[in-house]
C-alpha cells in the first residue's frame, strides 16, 4: 500500500487545493484563449504537489516568495482565487489593484511576499525576510520557491551562502521542472542533482520526487523543523514537470511529445495522490466527485467576481508608487 506522509494533516483539503490549482490554471488558459486575459501567463499545471505540499505545512505567519509561475503557490498559501482571477483580468478588486498581474500577486497578510518576475530575484529577499524573523525573534520560516534555471544565477549562490553563514530560517525550494524556458537542465547544468549545490554552502540538500506530495511534505517538514530549531537553511530540489509550455507563445520545440506524455500519464501528481488516498481508504469516489464539484463552483464564482469587478480608475495610475 502506498505510504502517506504523516505531515499531511488534512489529506482531503490537500487534494482539494491541488485540484483547485489545476482548475484555476485551466480556466486561466481558457480565458486567455478567449482574449479576456492579456499579456502572458506561466501555468503550473503538473506542478501542484510542490505548491500544496510545501504551503500546507506552513503556518499563517510563515512566509513564501514565489516565482513567475506562481499561481499555485499563492492558492496553496491561502490567497483567494476570486481576487487572483480579478488581478489576472486587471480589475480593481485584484490583489494588486490590476497593477501587478499574473507575475506579481502578493498577499502580505497571508505571508505571501509576492511572486517575482526576475529569475532568482526572490532568493535574496527571502534571506532578508528570514533575517527579520531572526533579529526580532519572530519564529517564522521563509520558504522561497524558484526553478532550476534560477540556480544558474549569481543571486542563488550568494543567497545560499549568506543564509548559511547567518544561519537563517529559510528554505530554498527548487522546483526542477527540467526546463528553464527552452534550456534543459541537461544542457545548462553539468551536475546530476541541483541539490548537490548545497554542499558548496554547508547546508543540507535533498532531491525528492516533486510529483509525490508525500515526499514533498516529508522534506518540507524536516526543513521547517531544522529552521525552527535554529539549524539554518535547507535546499530542497523537487523534480517535477510543467505540462504546458513556458508561456503562451511557447511551441515546445525543445522537448518531445513522448516525454510530455510520460509525465502526464504516469506521473500526474493529482492522479497519484488520489490513488494513494483510495488505496489507504481515505477517499471514496463520492468524496472525490464532491471535491471536484466544489472546486468548479469556487472557480466559477471567482470568474464571475472578476468579470463583475470594475476596472481600476485612471487616477490610480500614479498612486501607490511611494508609501
Amino acid at each position, binding site marked *: 500500500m502506498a505510504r502517506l506522509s504523516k505531515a499531511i494533516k488534512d489529506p482531503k483539503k490537500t487534494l482539494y487545493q491541488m485540484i483547485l490549482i489545476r482548475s484555476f490554471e485551466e480556466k486561466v488558459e481558457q480565458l486567455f484563449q478567449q482574449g479576456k486575459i492579456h499579456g502572458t501567463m506561466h501555468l503550473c499545471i503538473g506542478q501542484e504537489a510542490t505548491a500544496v505540499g510545501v504551503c500546507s505545512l506552513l503556518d499563517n505567519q510563515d512566509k513564501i516568495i514565489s516565482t513567475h509561475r506562481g499561481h499555485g503557490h499563492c492558492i496553496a498559501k491561502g490567497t483567494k482565487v476570486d481576487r487572483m482571477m480579478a488581478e489576472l483580468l486587471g480589475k480593481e478588486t485584484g490583489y494588486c489593484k490590476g497593477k501587478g498581474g499574473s507575475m506579481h500577486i502578493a498577499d502580505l497578510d497571508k505571508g505571501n511576499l509576492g511572486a517575482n518576475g526576475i529569475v532568482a530575484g526572490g532568493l535574496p529577499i527571502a534571506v532578508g525576510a528570514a533575517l527579520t524573523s531572526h533579529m526580532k525573534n519572530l519564529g517564522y520560516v521563509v520558504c522561497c520557491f524558484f526553478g532550476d534555471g534560477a540556480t544558474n544565477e*549569481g543571486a542563488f549562490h550568494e543567497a545560499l551562502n549568506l543564509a548559511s553563514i547567518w544561519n537563517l530560517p529559510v528554505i530554498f525550494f527548487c522546483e526542477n521542472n527540467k526546463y528553464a524556458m527552452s534550456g534543459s537542465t541537461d544542457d545548462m547544468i553539468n551536475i546530476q542533482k541541483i541539490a548537490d549545490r548545497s554542499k558548496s554552502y554547508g547546508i543540507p540538500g535533498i532531491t525528492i520526487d516533486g510529483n509525490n506530495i508525500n515526499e514533498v511534505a516529508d522534506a518540507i517538514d524536516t526543513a521547517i523543523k531544522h529552521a525552527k530549531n535554529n539549524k539554518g537553511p535547507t535546499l530542497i530540489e523537487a523534480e517535477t514537470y510543467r505540462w504546458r509550455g513556458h508561456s503562451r507563445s511557447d511551441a515546445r520545440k525543445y522537448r518531445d511529445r513522448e516525454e510530455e506524455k510520460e509525465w502526464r500519464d504516469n506521473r500526474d501528481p493529482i492522479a497519484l495522490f488520489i490513488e494513494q488516498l483510495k488505496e489507504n481508504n481515505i477517499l471514496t469516489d463520492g468524496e472525490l466527485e464532491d471535491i471536484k464539484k466544489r472546486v468548479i463552483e469556487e472557480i466559477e464564482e471567482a470568474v464571475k467576481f472578476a468579470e463583475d469587478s470594475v476596472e481600476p480608475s485612471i487616477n490610480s495610475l500614479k498612486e*501607490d*508608487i511611494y508609501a
Partner: protein
Amino acid sequence: MREITYLEAVKEAMIQEMKENDDVFIMGEDIGIYGGAFGVTNGMFEEFGPERVRNTPISESAISGCVIGAAVTGMRPILELQFSDFITIATDNIANQAAKLRYMFGGKGKVPIVVRTPGGSGAGFAAQHSQSLEAWMTHIPGLKVVQPSSPYDAKGLLKAAIDEDNPVMFYEHKLLYGTREGVPEESYTIPLGKAETKKEGKDLTIVATGIMVQRSLKAAELLSKEGVNIEVVDPRTLVPLDKDTILHSVKKTGRVLIVYEAVKRSGYGAEIASVIAESDVFDYLDAPIMRLGGEEVPIPYNPELERKAVPQVDTIMDAVKEMMI
C-alpha cells in the same frame, strides 16, 4: 557649535537612529571591526555588536536583496555599498525590486531601506571606483535620491532618509568625508525634497550637486572679487526635486549654469535644465541654460587627467565668465 566632519556627521546620524529605533541596523562589506572602507562605521561594531552592524560577504546581489526582504517584513535597514560603482551589481534589486514592489503589489508593503554609498572622483581610484552614476537611479520611479554636499546636510538628510518609508539612494562623496563644519549634536531632520540656497546673489544662478556645491561656492567667492555676484542653489535631493527654489532663483538672476560631476551627457543636470526650459521662467532668461559636467570619458588614474575629467573651481569660473559676456 562644535565642528565635525562629513564622515562623522553620517556616522552620528546612524548611531542616533540606531539608539532610537531597534529596527534600524546596518549591513555592508567590511563595516564591522574594519570600520568600513572609508571608516564611516568605525566604532559602531564595538558599540552595537555583530547583529546590528552586520559584516557581509562580498555579495552585492545578495545583500542588496536581503535589505529589501528585511524591510518588507518590518526592519529599517541601512546598506553601505562600499563604492557607488558597485550599484551595477546591485541594480536588479534596487531597480526591479525595491523601487517597484509597492506599486506592483497595488500599494501593499513598504521598503524603508537606505543605500548609503560614496561616489565621485578625485581620490585616485580610477575608472571602476570613481563614477557618479546617480542619474541612473533618478530615472527609476519608486526611488528617492539624495546627494548631500556638507556635514550639516549629511546628518539631517540621513535622518530623514532613515525615517522615510521608501527606498532612498544616499550618495556620499569620498572627497567630502574630511570636510568640517558646525553640526548640532542633537538629532535633526532636513526634509527630502527641499533645496537650499547656499549663497545669495543676483547676477547668475549656479545649480550644483554634491561636491560641485563646494567648488561652486569657492568659484563664487573668487568671482565676487571680480564684481560678479553668484547665487548657488543646492537641490540636496534629486528625487524629489525642489523645482520651486531653482526656478525662483533663475527667475531672479536670469542666468543659470548647472554644475555636476557626472558625465555631462544624460547627467542629472540635463533634467534640471529641462525643468527650467519647460517652465514659465524660460521667459526671464537672459542667456541660454548652460551645463558644466564631467567629460565623456571613464575616470582616468593620472592625477592631472583625473582633475581634468570633472569640473573644478577654475573651469566653473571660466564657464560663468563666458555666460556673463
